Structure formats: C-alpha cells, structure tokens
C-alpha cells in the first residue's frame, strides 16, 4: 500500500491516520471473533443440549474430583482457591475439571 514511502512523505498526520485505522481494524477483527465465539457457543450448547435430551444414556462426563453435589453460593471464594490450586498442581486447565462438592470433616 505505502511500500517505500519516506517519513517526510507520510508525515505525522499520515502516521496518526495509519494508527487510528490500525486500532480500528484490530478492534473490529477481535469484536467479530468475539461475536463468532458467542454464536458458536450458543449453537454448540443448543446442539449438545438437544443431544442430551434425546439420548439420556450418553457417556458420563469426565470424572469429577468429588461427589456430584452443587456447591453452596457462599463457597465461591473457596472454589476459586481450590480451582487455582488443582490447576497449578496438576498442570491442567480449570476447564478440564469441575468442582461439584466440597466436604469438610
């Protein structure tokens, strides 16, 4: 586009224009990706939800570290701590497991 142009030919106004255009392109591109991710997620969840309702004997999800009981609302902080600790210790992503119950003895 501007191959071989000199700084004097571009000038500060030209540089500003290029910068503004560049930022707009980056924002628009990532906004578009964001939109696509949201649409894909909805689509996948809809398809997977439909598959689950039509085939209730589907394979079980990955083994949860503890018994499948919903965590209490006030345990968010503890869940976050445990998620980070498990992810760090097992060198895995927090997406690869789910804490479903925390039992204290």
């Amino acid at each position: 586009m501007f191959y071989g142009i000199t700084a004097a030919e571009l000038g500060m106004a030209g540089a500003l224009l290029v910068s503004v255009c560049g930022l707009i392109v980056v924002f628009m591109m990532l906004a578009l990706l964001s939109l696509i991710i949201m649409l894909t997620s909805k689509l996948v969840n809809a398809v997977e939800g439909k598959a689950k309702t039509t085939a209730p004997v589907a394979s079980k999800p990955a083994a949860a570290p503890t018994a499948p009981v919903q965590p209490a609302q006030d345990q968010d902080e503890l869940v976050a701590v445990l998620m980070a600790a498990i992810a760090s210790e097992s060198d895995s992503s927090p997406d690869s497991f789910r804490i479903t119950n925390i039992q204290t003895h």
Partner: protein
Amino acid sequence: MSFLIEVIGKIFASSGFVGIVQDWRYGLMLVIACVLLYMGIVKGFEPLLLVPIAFGMLLANLPFTGLYNSLDVSNSTVGFMWVLSQGVTYAIYPSIIFMGIGAMTDFGPLIANPISLMLGAAAQLGIFAAFMGAVAISLFVPGVYFSPAEAAAIGVIGGADGPTAILTASKLAPDLLPAIAIAAYSYMALIPLIQPPVMKLMTTPKERQVKMSQLRVVSKAEKIIFPIAVTIIVVLLIPDTAPLIGMLMLGNLFRECGVTERLSDIAQNGLMNIVTIPLGLSVGFKASADKFLTLETLSIVLLGLCAFLLSTVGGLLLGKILYYTTGGKINPLIGSAGVSAVPMAARVSQVVGQKENPSNFLLMHAMGPNVAGVIGSAVAAGFMIKVFGIG
C-alpha cells in the same frame, strides 16, 4: 628461524585479534554478548532464548569467520550462519514457534469470556503509539532516521510477542531485526518489573480488589471449532496474518482435537526447542557491531519501552471502562494481561490483584485477555505488513 617468525606473523595477521584491534566496536559487542550470557545463565532472564541469541552475537563479532558468507555456487561454499538465517529471512522459524505456542495455549478462558478479546485489542495501543513515536523521531530528531516501514516494525515490540516482532521485522526492517528482537525479549522478561507500577498508578485499591465470578466450563466442541473459525475469519480478512494465525491455530487444533496428541506433543516440545536454537542464533548473529552500535538501536530500546508501557495503559483503560459498565464485575487488572507475553502478563495480574486481596484469584480471568493479545498483536502486525510491506 626467520621462516618460523614469518609463519607466526602471517597467522597472527590473519587472526581475529587484528580485526578487533582495527575496530574497537567488535570488542564492545563481545562484552555486550558476555553480559547478555550472564543475564541469561546467572540471572535467568529468558535463558532459552537469551543464551542462543547472546552466543549468536558473540559469533557474529569474531572477525574473519566467514560464517555469514552467502551461497557461492561456483566455489561450492556457503557460511553456516547464512544458511541458518534463511529461516528468519523468510519468516519460517517464527511461524513454527507460533505453532508450538498454539499447542501450549488453552483458549478456554477466552471462549468462556469473549469480552476478553476487546482487552486484547486495547492492549495493542502501544504498537501504534510507538509507531508514531518512531515517525516523529525521524522527522524531528537529527541524525536518526526510520522509514515508516521500520517504524511499524519497531512499534510491534509493543505487542510483547517475540515471534510476531521477529516476523514483522524480517519483512519490514531486516537491518533492525536484532535490536527489535533483543528489545522485545528483554522487555518481555522484565514484565514483572515494568507493569506493576503502571497497574497501581491507574487503578484504585477498590478496583484491584474486585473478585470475578468463576468462568463457565467450555465444551470440547467449542474448543475444536475455535481454531478453525479464527483461521478462516482472520486470514480471509487480513491474508498477511496467515503465517502467524494459521500456525498458531494449527498448533491449537493439534492440542484440542483429541486425535493428534503426538503432533501436539512434538509441536510444543521437540519442534519448538529445535527451532528456538537456529532462531536465537540467527537473531543474535545479525547483531554485528556496524549494525548494532548505532543511535537507532538506542532509539529502538527507548521506543520499545514506551510501546510496552502504553500497551499496558491501553489494556488497563479498557479494563476500567468495563469495570464501570459492568457495575464492578470486571477487575481492571486483567486488562494489562492483554499484552501477549503468555503467561507472564497474566501472572503479573494475579500477583498484583492478590497483593491487594490475598483471597483473589485472577489468573484464569487474565489468561483470556492474555491469549487474546497474541491474536491482537498478530492482527496488528498483519495490518502493518499490509500497509508498509511489498505488494
């Protein structure tokens, strides 16, 4: 006896010592190379890259080696480093490194929270600000000149992404490649020192204490579709991003599809390590005294620092905007992770957040903007190559 003295004299006359005596800058570059080796080996600053880069620099400044002699078909000779450097000249190594990064990266936090992509975009502010800074220096500072293409390559340092900076420099500013690569990797290693003061300056203790809700679980199908969709959309819109985005997403597909574990393993371990050696050596080897010890290098170091700081500011600014628009649900500290530097920048967000509130865990939330920054800087680099490159 006189024959012996003559032979010894001739050997000495053709030795590298004469070259160093003739041009003191070689000696200075050898000292710089040794300092960089010290920083890599003893201080542990990005040693996997800094050690080969510094050693390449050391080799480049030993005179008369002929290591960089280009291919001479008539005499069947070629310099070893010239052969290795073709991978940088034609942007092969950075693309392969990106494949490895893709295989190592979990895009789950980004898919779970797509708004992270905006933070990754805002943190590219430094690229464009440093570009303007470099053009301004060319226009107003006597004795220093960067063409707009070189200014664009310098700006990409602000993307905090080594392979992207190297690829852009190889296409837009081959002579400035070593200074740009060394500045980019040095600042990436110094992120834990550079970012926290800016983060504290731009946020209030109340903002830093915000706890974000747990991210949703991302399904396997979403993770498989993501790299395919990103490749199609981004490369269709900006074809110049194909080497970076294409390889990044291929590596990620290896990781996520579940049927190519062996390829994923080799991409993120063996292949990445194999390519890192010639990449580092080639980059370092381009830092010969005549090209490196210039006023331009000093300007690049300063502009690179400004680019890093402003990228951090850009991410934090949007983080603050999101904090207010979401009613305090987003901690603005994750915005600074929008500069690529995976996972260092996300760790910095975690550390700064935890200092304010020890029970706060921002790491996974910061990983979203962090990996978005990789895509953002590749898009910004593709834009610059499109605008200032050939064709």
